[in-house]
């Protein structure tokens, strides 16, 4: 296979001149774009972008350029901690194994829970799921990706029978005539992504952005629709209504490649644009323009991000955008389609290989007898020894330490004290555990609560595969030796397995784990059977499904048929409903949350990098000038944001980029998630992060 080529031009610098000869070709530690970078470790760490990875093609944002500081951070944990005191590895592992045995002896297998993360490599995510099911035999495992990708995943599965974030190479975007992004701010979350959009616009293509804020991404758009938080679903229905009313439905495609349109056509009839305007606040004329831009495009792409997905109706919202894409005949056509913009570094691979409560490797369902038989055979156990589905992430955290819930938790690659909704309550649940074990590289806010902390290797100190937002499996190579005393998560799981069941089946070498993952995923939806480390290196990544080593991989899986039993994409009728917690007299403002360019997720990494912390050192509250005038708030005033579940303080930033009825807080610090609403989507179990009701008070 020939490595893919960039379609987005070059960065204006000579990377070869900047890149040390001994540098290791690897990938960024942060988001799902997984920008290619070279890492050279000498006295200092030198990072330069790679041009051979199409996602970034030589670009990097400040997070990527400064990632090397993570390797030399003085905050690194280098020894296991037991009740905050340094101990040896054997002592720590012995202690944890003994406590697991005691808790399970008293409360049964489900007395111990496991919580993973979307930043873990495929190997770690796989091994974590296997460890939970095979060693702990607990059903209680889920991961922070539930807070991230679950709504998009659920909607894509029900429409296409498969959830691969972008079911096309990212380079397709540059060739599109129109791209609509619903609730995504790529200019801050994954800046090099914008290069693909810029290439599209340079060719005359148009960008439409739906966001309650005029974000950095929305400001680059040809058309920005600014709905009230929690009303994206109504907006999508309104757009579909217009597409139908204006005769823009691709009837041949609908007849030939889909099922269920009649029901959706009828339900959309009740969402005429003037009704949608009143709910969303988006003028009818702008909706019409958006529909026209999509309909006029020869090739168009519709993308959703967390803004549309992180709601108690997130799955239906994504379904509404997929319905729109299907009506226009986009998915499964080369150069067009629907995709979600995956967030975390391995947010795609992390949702495929079994750290999810209802899932086994290869994107198999844990309640499917054939899937259980296949995976049990790979693991050398009886299918009936596999536990069934467990609680979803928030339900799991909410149950911790309760009479019916787990009494112990092993946590890898996540920081729920910052990132979970209703974080104050979640923190209380974590404190109530008999045993909390956290594996992390630094003393995160959650690690600070743990009975036992395992210091773990990071990113450039270990090898493994990551599956980026395109579904392209990438190789993240080790570029540096870990500090003495630090072990990889695979070594930690092996250490626990040795003590609880035996070492067999728990190698510490990522390649061995990956080879088993290939077998476990074989025949599943996310089939990695034909992917090897060598192929990834030679081909600059391989797209799953890839069932055999002589299979080229599948950049665009839906060109001929969708992954449903009849090969047709399914329309799913959905209805809008208001946010779970709407504004009222007592709490008259919407709070919506999101990210800033300089930080990543809970900030455990980026808040420890001086250059990033200098850009945004503390949490802030964005509010509109009209609201500021009414509350007599000046820029820089300290504000208290008060909601039904808690309160948080932040410095006022006054900007017309946010609606007058809405305040915005980034969630990289303790604060925003003290307020967010844990109301769950009935299908995906996604919490309603993106909208709740608050009031503002000035502090002092």
């Amino acid at each position: 296979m020939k490595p893919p080529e960039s379609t987005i031009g070059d960065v204006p610098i000579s990377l070869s001149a900047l890149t040390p000869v001994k540098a290791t070709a690897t990938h960024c530690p942060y988001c799902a774009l997984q920008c290619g970078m070279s890492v050279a470790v000498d006295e200092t760490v030198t990072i330069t972008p790679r041009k051979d990875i199409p996602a970034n093609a030589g670009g990097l944002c400040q997070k990527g350029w400064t990632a090397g500081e993570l390797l030399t951070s003085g905050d690194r944990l280098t020894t296991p901690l037991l009740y905050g005191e340094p101990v040896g590895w054997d002592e720590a592992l012995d202690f944890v194994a003994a406590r697991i045995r005691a808790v399970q002896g008293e409360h049964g297998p489900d007395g111990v829970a496991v919580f993973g993360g979307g930043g873990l490599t495929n190997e770690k995510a796989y091994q974590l799921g296997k460890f939970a099911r095979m060693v702990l035999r607990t059903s209680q495992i889920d991961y922070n990706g539930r807070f991230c990708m679950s709504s998009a995943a659920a909607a894509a599965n029900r429409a296409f029978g498969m959830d691969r974030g972008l079911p096309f190479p990212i380079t397709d975007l540059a060739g599109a005539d129109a791209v609509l992004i619903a609730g995504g701010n790529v200019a801050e979350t994954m800046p090099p992504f914008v290069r693909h959009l810029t290439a599209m616009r340079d060719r005359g293509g148009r960008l439409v952005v739906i966001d309650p804020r005029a974000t950095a991404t929305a400001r680059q758009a040809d058309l920005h629709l600014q709905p009230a938080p929690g009303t994206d679903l109504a907006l999508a229905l309104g757009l579909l209504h217009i597409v139908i009313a204006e005769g823009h439905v691709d009837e041949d495609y609908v007849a030939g490649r889909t099922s269920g349109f009649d029901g959706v056509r009828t339900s959309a009839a009740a969402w005429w644009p003037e009704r949608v305007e009143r709910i969303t606040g988006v003028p009818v004329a702008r909706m019409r323009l958006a529909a026209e831009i999509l309909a006029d495009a020869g090739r168009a792409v519709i993308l959703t991000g967390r803004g549309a997905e992180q709601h108690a109706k997130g799955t239906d919202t994504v379904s509404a955008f997929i319905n729109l894409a299907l009506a226009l005949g986009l998915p499964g056509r080369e150069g067009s389609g629907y995709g979600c913009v995956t967030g975390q570094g391995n947010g795609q691979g992390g949702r495929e290989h079994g750290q999810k409560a209802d899932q086994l490797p290869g994107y198999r369902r844990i309640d499917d007898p054939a899937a259980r038989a296949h995976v049990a055979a790979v693991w050398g156990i009886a299918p009936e020894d596999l536990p069934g589905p467990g609680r979803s992430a928030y339900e799991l955290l909410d149950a911790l330490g309760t009479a019916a819930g787990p009494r112990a938790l092993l946590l890898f690659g996540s920081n729920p004290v910052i990132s979970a909704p209703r974080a104050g309550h979640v923190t209380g649940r974590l404190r109530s555990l008999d045993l909390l074990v956290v594996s992390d590289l630094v003393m995160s806010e959650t690690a600070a609560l743990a009975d036992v902390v395992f210091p773990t290797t990071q990113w450039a100190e270990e090898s493994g595969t990551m599956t980026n937002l395109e579904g392209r499996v990438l190789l993240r190579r080790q570029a540096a030796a870990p500090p003495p005393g630090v072990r990889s998560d695979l070594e930690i799981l092996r250490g626990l397995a040795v003590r609880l069941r035996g070492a067999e089946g728990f190698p510490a070498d990522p390649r061995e784990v990956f080879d088993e993952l290939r077998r476990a995923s074989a025949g599943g939806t996310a089939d990695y059977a034909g992917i090897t480390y060598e192929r990834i290196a030679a081909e600059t990544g391989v797209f799953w499904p890839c069932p055999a080593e002589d299979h080229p991989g599948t950049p665009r899986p839906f060109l001929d048929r969708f992954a449903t039993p009849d090969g047709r994409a399914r329309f799913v009728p959905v209805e809008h409903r208001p946010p779970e917690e709407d504004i009222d007299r007592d709490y008259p403002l919407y709070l919506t949350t999101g990210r800033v360019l300089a930080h990543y997720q809970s900030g455990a990494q980026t808040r420890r990098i001086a250059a990033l912390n200098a850009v945004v050192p503390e949490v802030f509250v964005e509010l509109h000038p009209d609201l500021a005038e009414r509350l007599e708030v000046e820029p820089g005033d300290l504000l208290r944001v008060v909601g039904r579940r808690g309160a948080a303080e932040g410095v006022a930033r006054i900007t017309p980029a946010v609606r007058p009825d809405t305040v915005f807080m980034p969630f990289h610090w303790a604060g925003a998630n003290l307020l967010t609403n844990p109301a769950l989507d009935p299908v995906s179990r996604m919490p309603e992060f993106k909208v709740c009701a608050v009031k503002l008070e000035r502090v002092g």
Partner: protein
Amino acid sequence: MTRLVIVGNGMAGARLVSEVRARDKHVKVTVIGAETWQPYNRVLLSNVVAGTMLPDQVRLLDPAWYADHSVTALLGVEVTAIDRETQAVLTADGRREPYDVLVLATGSEAVVPPVPGAAGAMAFRTLDDCRAILAAAGAARRAVVVGGGLLGIEAARGLAGRGLPVTLLHLAGHLMERQLDAEAGLVLGETLAELGVTVRTGAVVEEILGDGVRLAGGETVGSDLVVLACGVRPVTGLAGDAGLEVARGIVVDDEMRTDDPSIFAIGECAQHDGTVYGLVAPAWEQAAVVADLVTGTDKTSRYRGSRLVTRLKARSVELAAMGETHLTEDDAEVVCFSHRARGTYRKLVIRDGRLVGAILLGETAAVGALTQLFDRGSPVPADPSGLLFPGLPGSAVTESPVRMPDAAKVCQCNNVTKGQIRACWESGARDVEAVAAATRATTGCGGCRDVVEGIVGWLCEQEGISV
């Protein structure tokens, strides 16, 4: 088990059926509709007349819906009487449908003006009316629409869009006089004129002829298609005959209950707190309340009246009107902007710091923000001009490199200021590549490349000048 009977299968009745089923799978539901059509969306009928939607694209429920949800639907069946004594409704085809709870959603009917020849004109109210209008429009060469309210204007615009010259006759002094002030009515008329609709206000129709309409004063407006849109009146005959209290509509309380506790009324046939609503949004709010009460989902559910926002649905005519648009400076603050040459008129009516009325005609970019201020009763900013002229927040990227302060951030992705680029230039960098290599500017999203080039170019130019 409760037997729920709904009379009327229009926007209100059909909505109630689905609201009830969304809450309760078991209550026995029978809906009786006089029209043979599946329930359809009346709001979209002007699209049908305009030819942008086909009749079967405006239905509210799929034909299979009733069977799938075990609802008995009697379509094309007229209800002739309510027997309150035995709690049953009687139908023209001889059925007797017993109820525990009866909901009247009989809607309203078109008012036909009492002038000679009116029978030869076409009403514009039902889907059947639309089909008749469409059939006639095919052969017609010119049309007259009588009535310059919301529906009349939509019908006139729709027919004009099909290429027919249309004259719109309106009795009052200006169009949509209930929703608009005189100037807005005037601007609207001028906008319609440009689209092929001749507006005649103060026009009193005396007779409808075979080849036109004769006005008071004797003038005849030639036409081979006359459409009547002279308003509607609530259909209350069944209720009145059954002895329920009827004023203009069927009188209901906050539970939408009539003076018979087992009979409710919703939609355009109901009169709540003195008001009969003629729009869909209130009818649907009322349906939700009745569904809450009938299924016991929320026994405290009450209807408290609706704020009305009128949106004209006519291609190339943007009009939104809400609330008390007729208030003057005596009772309120009035903010106005008028530009007739461009068909633009904007008016805000503010009382006690709240938006109580507004008109937006022409460009309606502000409509979303205004509607939500009006609906929520949120405070209006001290300077409301931003509400009339909403602008997008400017983008800093286009700023000239000369005027940009040194502290201005040029590259967001790598946090590089103009000052840093200048410093970089001062230490020898003379092109974008050198600046990028030193500062990493342009290497993220790439969006600042032009600005960086501009700054470097300007600095080089300065150098040239100073040398």
